[in-house]
């Protein structure tokens, strides 16, 4: 039953650069409709795991199913939305408007050698509206703030109406004021639009009250389960997961 409902199912995945393993024996299934936080310190293999899921790195050992199809045979990449770490992958001087950037998210769906029409323009406007950026459609992406840019990238990722949205450290470079409203938007996508979310972060404290599931990664998958189970872990177990004190509890004791 669980198998059927998993949007992504990872079994026995190992990955190494040269002879150093960065991922070992990873088993992870992401249930449909969940909001899962994949946490781990820097260098824990989070980004590598994401790249493997997205097909940017080849699976060396183990298997990955996407929507029940083995990854090697999977063709419907438009069902997976991806928001990368902004800082890494785009140059802010690029002369592109918000609507041009978001239209990029439809390229695969439209298909090779074809050009977007009215239907696609409307889809772009709808996605931009869903992230609250409709008044910026004709603005250059480089003229926006970090938080606004990240919203535009979410719009690009959801414009093809994917079933799952994968976010790699999406709030890096977004000021704390906007982080809250950013997470409110994610909750909206998850609850109202029934989108499965996989959020990768090194900072577990900020997501504990937002996600439904947690996976703790540091080369091995140390914990994988619902938030309810996670909260029940005691200090000692948490410390074993992370190897040092973490900020999980701070957040809850704030109130």
């Amino acid at each position: 039953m669980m198998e059927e409902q998993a949007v992504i199912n990872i079994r026995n995945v190992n990955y190494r650069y040269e002879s150093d393993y960065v991922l070992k024996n990873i088993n992870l299934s992401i249930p449909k409709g969940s909001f899962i936080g994949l946490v781990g310190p820097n260098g824990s293999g989070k980004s590598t795991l994401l790249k493997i899921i997205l097909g940017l790195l080849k699976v060396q050992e183990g298997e990955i199913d996407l929507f029940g199809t083995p990854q090697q045979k999977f063709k419907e990449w438009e069902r997976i939305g991806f928001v990368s770490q902004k800082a890494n992958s785009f140059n802010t001087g690029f002369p592109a408007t918000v609507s041009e950037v978001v239209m990029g998210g439809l390229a695969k769906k439209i298909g090779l050698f074809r050009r977007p029409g009215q239907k696609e323009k409307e889809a772009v406007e709808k996605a931009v509206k869903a992230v609250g950026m409709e008044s910026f459609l004709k603005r250059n992406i480089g003229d926006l703030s970090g938080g606004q840019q990240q919203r535009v990238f979410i719009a690009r990722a959801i414009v093809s109406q994917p079933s799952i949205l994968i976010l790699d450290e999406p709030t890096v470079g977004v000021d704390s004021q906007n982080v809250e409203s950013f997470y409110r938007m994610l909750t909206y996508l998850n609850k109202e639009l029934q989108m499965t979310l996989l959020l990768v972060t090194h900072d577990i404290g900020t997501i504990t009250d937002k996600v439904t599931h947690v996976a703790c990664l540091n080369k091995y998958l140390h914990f994988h389960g619902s938030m309810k189970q996670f909260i029940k872990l005691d200090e000692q177990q948490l410390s074993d997961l992370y190897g040092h004190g973490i900020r999980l509890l701070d957040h809850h004791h704030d109130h």
Partner: protein
Amino acid sequence: MIIITIIERETIMIEAILTYEFLQNAFLSGIIIGVIAPLLGAFIVVRRLSLIADALSHVALSGIAAGLFLGQAVPALSAINPLYFGMLFSVGGSLLIERLRSVYKHYQELAIPIIMSGGIGVGVIFISLADGFTTDLFSYLFGSVSAVSRGDLLAIIVISILVIVTIFLLYKELFILSFDEEYAKASGIPAKAVHFAFIILTALVIAVSMRIVGVLLVSALMTLPVAAAMRITKGFTQTIWLSVFFGEVSVLAGLVSAFYLDLAPGGTIVVTSILILLAVIVWKKERD
């Protein structure tokens, strides 16, 4: 008095264009190149590949030199337009650059000096073999108003159609590849194939453009109009249109002044585009 002279000159030039085939060839080629060089250049600039254009133009030169030499050495080959050798070498060079970029993953820019010096090295050897510089070679280096043949024009037209059709059909793929390469790959579009098509087109455009602007300045016509347009446009489509407009103005102004002043058009075209660039920078500063 001055006005009459200008009108006379206008008439002289238009009459000359109508009379002389070589001028028709030069102006038609120039008008076409004024469109395709900045069109492709817009993608080259935003992908930070401007220097690759430079490297490829030098490889194209070695192809031209090889063509001129072979034409001398083997009479049967003298019927082949050296431009085709230039295209062949340029495409070969682009494939080598790609190969080198994957060999030196962390020092991708190394591919550029390797290919550029290789291009010049091979070029110099063929030039020496062909008994040094000739007027022919000079025209390839700096462009020419008088040396463009019907065959050159034909090659330019064919390549331009290929470029425009490909960019029209692959626009959205080229756009996301330029904007965000990782995302392009993750989104499942055939990024490698699109990049391959792009790099081949670049090589071909460089080879045909140098007939008018010359080897040494061909990359300028691909980058300067774009550099100017980027300062003042909103969005990528606008950037492309304005780049083409600036490119066209540069080529026409450059060719006309080259005709009157008896100069190599490469120089006048590039100086015009630099003037446009400066004007745009100053205007933008004043406005803000």
